[in-house]
């Protein structure tokens, strides 16, 4: 099953190839095995395999966000925390020797694991395929360092900084929309991103609900199968076989329905979820640019004031020059980033929609043949 990463043309460059071949779900943590193959000279070895936790990814993301140099780039969104609520409790109980996991719970856990591996993998691959991010020092440490990263992470300042950054983000929209935009490109982008971000957030939420309902239906097939088997026990042979056959049909239906729901989730819901976050990252870029513009405008005012007063003019001129430089740099790289972002988005949607549709057709055809086969058997009984 192809991942979103393939659509974004990641991992094409053989000089730095990353994947997550394995993940372990222990009591309350997930341990990802991050596997790197590289021909780059900046790395000490050609191949690495390290264990990383979700928090390590977040640390890496936050350090990148706070790097001034990357202000003009769309920072790949941080992967969300693995969601193992239900199964997590079960794992706890398992550890304490209490209960055992049912087949269904195990399958659900596997699905969650599949999802979370995909999204963590894509994050790393976005970094590795970007000319600037792949050279990031912390990124290299993340891939290379064969020990636990926990100590590095515990840098309180970084953590606090990250938290602060998140708080500030919510003021984005006001600042972004308030900008008097001269540049046509950015004006369009701003309007598009602001509208699109709310729409895609909504679509994600609705897709999530739809997928959940689908899984509920699959669960019901499971219960019906169980109830039919119970009823079969008390009957004479002929009817008993019939009931057992029906129970089998429902069990098979459940598997197909479950797979349909999972595939829809992986292709559609996850796609929407990912791009909701990516759109946010694009908005963050606009925000940083808007801030730079505001700084530039302020520096202009300060320069005028300085000129009037005849004091500290040189300093004010220098400040203004720097602000303009920064703004121009952000605008230039921002334009590139946003253009490639659109291309990336279109490719991803296309690939995933095609794959989702092909899978839906495949599963539906499976259902039909399963059902028709069963109908034949039941009729002939």
């Amino acid at each position: 099953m192809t991942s979103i990463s393939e659509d974004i043309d990641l991992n094409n460059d053989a000089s730095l190839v990353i994947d997550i071949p394995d993940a372990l779900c222990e009591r309350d943590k997930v341990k990802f095995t991050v596997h790197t193959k590289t021909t780059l000279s900046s790395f000490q070895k050609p191949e690495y395999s390290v264990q990383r936790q979700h928090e390590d990814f977040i640390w890496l993301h936050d350090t990148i966000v706070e790097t001034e140099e990357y202000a003009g780039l769309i920072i790949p969104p941080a992967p969300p925390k693995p969601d193992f609520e239900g199964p997590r409790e079960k794992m706890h109980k398992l550890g304490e020797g209490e209960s055992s996991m049912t087949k269904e719970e195990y399958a659900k856990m596997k699905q969650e694991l599949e999802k979370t591996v995909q999204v963590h993998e894509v994050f790393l691959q976005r970094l590795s395929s970007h000319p600037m991010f792949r050279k990031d020092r912390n990124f290299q440490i993340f891939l290379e360092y064969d020990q636990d990263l926990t100590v590095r992470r515990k840098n309180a300042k970084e953590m606090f900084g990250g938290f602060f950054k998140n708080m500030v983000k919510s003021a984005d929209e006001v600042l972004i929309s308030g900008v008097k935009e001269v540049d046509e490109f950015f004006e369009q982008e701003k309007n598009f991103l602001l509208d699109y971000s709310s729409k895609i957030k909504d679509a994600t939420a609705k897709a999530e609900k739809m997928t959940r309902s689908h899984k509920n239906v699959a669960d019901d097939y499971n219960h019906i199968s169980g109830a039919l088997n119970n009823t079969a026990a008390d009957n004479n042979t002929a009817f008993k076989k019939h009931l057992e056959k029906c129970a089998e049909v429902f069990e098979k239906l459940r598997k197909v329905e479950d797979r349909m729901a999972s595939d829809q989730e992986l292709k559609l819901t996850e796609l929407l979820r990912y791009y909701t976050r990516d759109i946010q990252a694009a908005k963050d870029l606009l925000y940083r640019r808007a801030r730079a513009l505001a700084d530039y405008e302020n520096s202009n005012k300060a320069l005028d004031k300085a000129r009037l007063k005849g004091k500290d003019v040189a300093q004010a001129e220098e400040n203004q020059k720097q602000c303009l430089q920064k703004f121009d740099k952000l605008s230039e790289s921002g334009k590139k980033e946003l253009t490639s972002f659109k291309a990336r988005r279109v490719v991803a949607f296309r690939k995933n929609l095609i794959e989702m549709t092909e899978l839906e057709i495949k599963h539906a055809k499976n259902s039909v043949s399963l059902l028709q086969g069963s109908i034949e058997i039941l009729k002939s009984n």
Partner: protein
Amino acid sequence: MESPEAARLSAEDISPSSNGPKAEPMLLDDDPDDLFAEATEEVSLDSPERQPILSDGPSPVITPVTPVMISSRADVFDRSPDQDEDEEENRDTFDIQISVSDPEKVGKDVCDSLSLCLQTSLSIFSRDEVCVKRRFSDFLGLHSKLASKYMHMGYIVPPAPEKSIVGMTKVKVGKEDLSSVEFVEKRRSALERYLLRTVKHPALLKDPDVLQFLESSELPRAVSTQALSGAGILRMVNKAADAVNKMTIKMNESDAWFEEKQQQFENLDVQLRKLHASVESLVCHRKELSVNTASFAKSAAMLGNSEDHTALSRALSQLAEVEEKIDQLHQDQACADFYLISELLGDYVRLITAVKGVFDQRMKTWAKCQDAQVMLQRKREAEAKLQHANKPDKLQQAKDEIREWEGKVQQGERDFEQISKNIRREVGRFEKDRVKDFRVVIIKYLESLVHTQQQMIKYWEAFLPEAKAIA
């Protein structure tokens, strides 16, 4: 059991009766059982097997309904049960179609008056095609009558549909209040199934109340049933017993069968309820899926509008259209889930209650028999005492009483035997029907699933080129 669609007749070519349903229903809605609780007792003594004995007694003055009942029953029950079995063999040529339609609102009840159309070639009906109007309370009234007449004899009388919509999920989608539309259809369908099940019962099909219900343009006022109670009691009191051989009640070996069957029905009750609950959950979740799919479709359309890449925007709009169509599929499938399986299971859960009731009746009958025996014993003891008391009139009276109670014991034993025989037959019929119904329904249901999936394939295959067209 016919599906709603199959059983429906277009009533257009059949002229409905010009008169609407008649007068006020007599509080039958509230506690139909109460009115007939007494009736049960007397009617048992009216049982057709004892017809010859009754004909001596005075026939009480009652409304026309009663004599009709008795004479027709004589017809039916002069035949041996074996003949009924034969009839059942021929049930494959059972030619009767009933449809319940045109629900009308009366007062607060959105589905109170309905048209009942019958199409048949069976000779017991006076016409090939009849259409009448009935109130919901009429159906309940019919069931009450049948229950009071037949249950104590061990016949499994199909239960009437419930008044309330317990267990039905109300889903509001859009501006329409679907719950009342669904309620009407649920009730209409339930009444249709109820009637079909009733006429499938060979004894009930010939019952004059049933025939009248199906054919008469107007039903007589329910008030007659009250009078019946009174007359029945009168008859019971005037009874004179015959001198028949003493019979001691033996515990027949067949009791093991009853014990086994009762346990089986207890188990079946639990299992069916569980299965029913699972299916109800499926209906609920599929309805939710439909709502959520529709909601997603709208959202996808909005996203498509917002998308600035033209080809992707078009594809998203088309995705929204596909999802809308799929939503409709889910709705239709939920209906199939409900009407094919869920309602059938609900019917069977209620039927099993009726079956258990019939087993109870047998125990009541046995208890009555035992009581009679105890009484007889006492009378014999009393007579023995009076033998030496030199009170000739009292002695004579005691002897009379002995004869009376001997008769009662005999009757009790006969009743017990009869009800046991009936139950065996009824249970056999029930099992056959249950298996047949299930087999038929499960295939219909799986076919509905096939249809849904085939439609899905069509929709997605149409969408695929649209997705590929994104450039």
